């Protein structure tokens, strides 16, 4: 009898959660897209007359906050460090929207609870699996009702207040539950430490998506102060800031001209605009990732790298090993490999091609709550399916004819680079019609060679500046790729004098060449929408 009631309770609870979150999702605050810059102009914090960290606030305020967190962190005894990080993260999130914090806490509590339940049924496979499925269902319910479901009911012109970091910490929660189920890790018994893993503030914006044991094992025992961490972390942080202020702030203008303002551009101008938008999304995403990793490093915490010269990839498959690496690894471990395992007895080429297609459809869904993202994901999935099939056939072909693989490296990189940028058109257009319009213009074959920079939004001087910085950053990447060394690490190994000359010149570049137009203080990374 007791067991029945227990099961009954769980199911009732779940029905309540799903119903609640669905209705809540329907009624969550919506705003109108007044200007292209704002995600929403409705704020619960404003409504409740609470203080609010505006999207418009300076990125320097965020830095100030981060520095304060770091300073106090090392002043505290090791056993309270986690508490400080938790308080700082929750305080930060509450300043954005108190509603964001409520959702984070709710998801954290559920995942923590189900982790313990799964662990308690180590010997009982059935019960463990049931709790895993329930936990996964709750995670999916949260992300579905708060991110996707409302979209089905509101007009395209409206936006919804998606909790900051939801997409990232839900994935972390899912990875945690599966890892506990597979006995890769023990369920975390310390709620506070687990809560820091889920809501660590630098990761709320663009990730990276960390694994539980990787992060928790670092902070559990407390972290000792080490000069080098502060130095490395600060350098990383300012590297990200440099990218943002001198390059991203200019690139965003071009991106807006091409995708948001539907400027009348000639084919040549549009090609340039598309490639520059490709750089925009990369430098924007990687700059904010640098900042997140930098802050972590200052706190003595290592994070997974999210990028490894993505535009030097030799195939789409290779591209995804270099772009948003933490997501690719998540997809590989929790979607692709399980699918592969389930289909391992079927024909390898067919099943793996299908599985990679499905995996990237899911990736597309995760990226955005409209059809164009799913389409984008599907295209990447399809391209990789073709690569897998082609690769298998090529392997067999080479064996048969005894040929050695010639080095087509540079051509592969160029082809991949062009294809990736063409697919970004789908990703960055807010509708299929816009994307098709852009593709039509790109391939319309107009031969006007004159380029009107003003149409791309920038003054000529800024345009040239932007090209110079792209060349600068990409040259460093090519150098890193060829020498297999990391530039920032190599920098740290130099003599004091050389290091400081470089730091000061970066500061100089930041101040003199930074783009301080209307968007200077915008704290609005494109990947924050996800």
């Amino acid at each position: 009898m007791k067991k029945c009631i227990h099961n009954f309770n769980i199911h009732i609870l779940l029905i309540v959660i799903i119903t609640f979150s669905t209705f809540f999702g329907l009624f969550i605050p919506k705003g109108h897209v007044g200007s292209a810059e704002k995600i929403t102009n409705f704020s619960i914090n404003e409504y409740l007359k609470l203080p609010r960290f505006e999207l418009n606030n300076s990125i320097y305020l965020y830095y100030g906050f981060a520095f304060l967190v770091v300073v106090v962190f090392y002043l505290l005894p090791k056993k309270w460090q986690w508490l400080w990080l938790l308080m700082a993260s929750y305080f930060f999130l509450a300043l954005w929207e108190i509603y964001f914090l409520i959702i984070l806490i709710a998801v954290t509590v559920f995942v923590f609870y189900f982790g313990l339940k799964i662990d308690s049924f180590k010997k009982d496979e059935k019960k463990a699996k049931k709790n895993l499925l329930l936990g996964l269902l709750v995670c999916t319910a949260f992300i579905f009702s708060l991110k996707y479901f409302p979209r089905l009911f509101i007009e395209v012109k409206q936006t919804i207040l998606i909790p900051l970091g939801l997409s990232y910490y839900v994935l972390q929660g899912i990875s945690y539950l599966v890892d506990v189920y597979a006995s890769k890790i023990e369920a975390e018994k310390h709620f506070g430490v687990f809560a820091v893993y889920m809501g660590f503030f630098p990761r709320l914006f663009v990730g990276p998506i960390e694994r539980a044991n990787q992060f928790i094992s670092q902070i559990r025992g407390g972290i000792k102060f080490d000069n080098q961490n502060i130095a490395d972390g600060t350098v990383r942080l300012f590297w990200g800031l440099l990218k943002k202020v001198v390059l991203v702030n200019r690139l965003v203008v071009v991106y807006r001209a091409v995708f948001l303002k539907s400027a009348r551009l000639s084919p040549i101008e549009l090609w340039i605009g598309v490639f520059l938008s490709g750089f925009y999304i990369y430098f924007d995403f990687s700059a904010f990732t640098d900042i997140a990793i930098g802050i972590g490093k200052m706190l003595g915490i290592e994070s997974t790298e999210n990028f490894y010269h993505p535009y030097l990839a030799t195939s789409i498959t290779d591209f995804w090993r270099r772009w948003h690496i933490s997501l690719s690894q998540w997809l590989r471990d929790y979607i692709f490999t399980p699918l592969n395992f389930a289909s391992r007895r079927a024909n390898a080429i067919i099943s793996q091609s299908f599985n990679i297609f499905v995996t990237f459809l899911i990736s597309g869904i995760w990226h955005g709550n409209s059809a164009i993202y799913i389409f984008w994901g599907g295209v990447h999935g399809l391209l990789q399916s073709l690569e897998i099939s082609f690769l298998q056939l090529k392997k067999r072909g080479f064996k048969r004819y005894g040929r050695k693989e010639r080095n087509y490296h540079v051509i592969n990189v160029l082809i991949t680079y062009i294809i990736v940028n063409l697919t970004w058109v789908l990703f960055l257009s807010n509708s299929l019609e816009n994307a098709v319009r852009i593709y039509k213009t790109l391939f319309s074959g107009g031969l006007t060679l004159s380029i009107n920079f003003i149409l791309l939004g920038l003054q000529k001087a800024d345009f040239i500046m932007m090209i110079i910085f792209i060349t600068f950053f990409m040259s460093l990447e090519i150098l890193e790729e060829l020498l297999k060394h990391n530039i920032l690490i190599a920098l740290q190994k130099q003599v004091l004098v050389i290091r400081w000359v470089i730091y000061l010149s970066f500061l100089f570049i930041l101040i003199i060449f930074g783009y301080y137009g209307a968007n200077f203080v915008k704290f609005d990374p494109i990947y924050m929408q996800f």
Partner: protein
Amino acid sequence: MDKVFEKLTDIFREVFDNPAITIKPETTADDIEEWDSLTHMNLILMVELKFGIEFNQREVMRFQNVGEMAACIQEKISD
């Protein structure tokens, strides 16, 4: 256990088409160039066929290195 390792070495060499491969308990996918998410399943399948065993999803997710895979195999064949 040595027998398991011997047989595993042969399997690795066959699946990855590289007669020079050697494996140790600490070996992971990072150590072998041909071992990626695509070839991983070929390996699992071959192990199942050659040892006459069957893994489940939970077990396969657990292996962190070759040593753990070998231990799991050992357990299954001595059942």
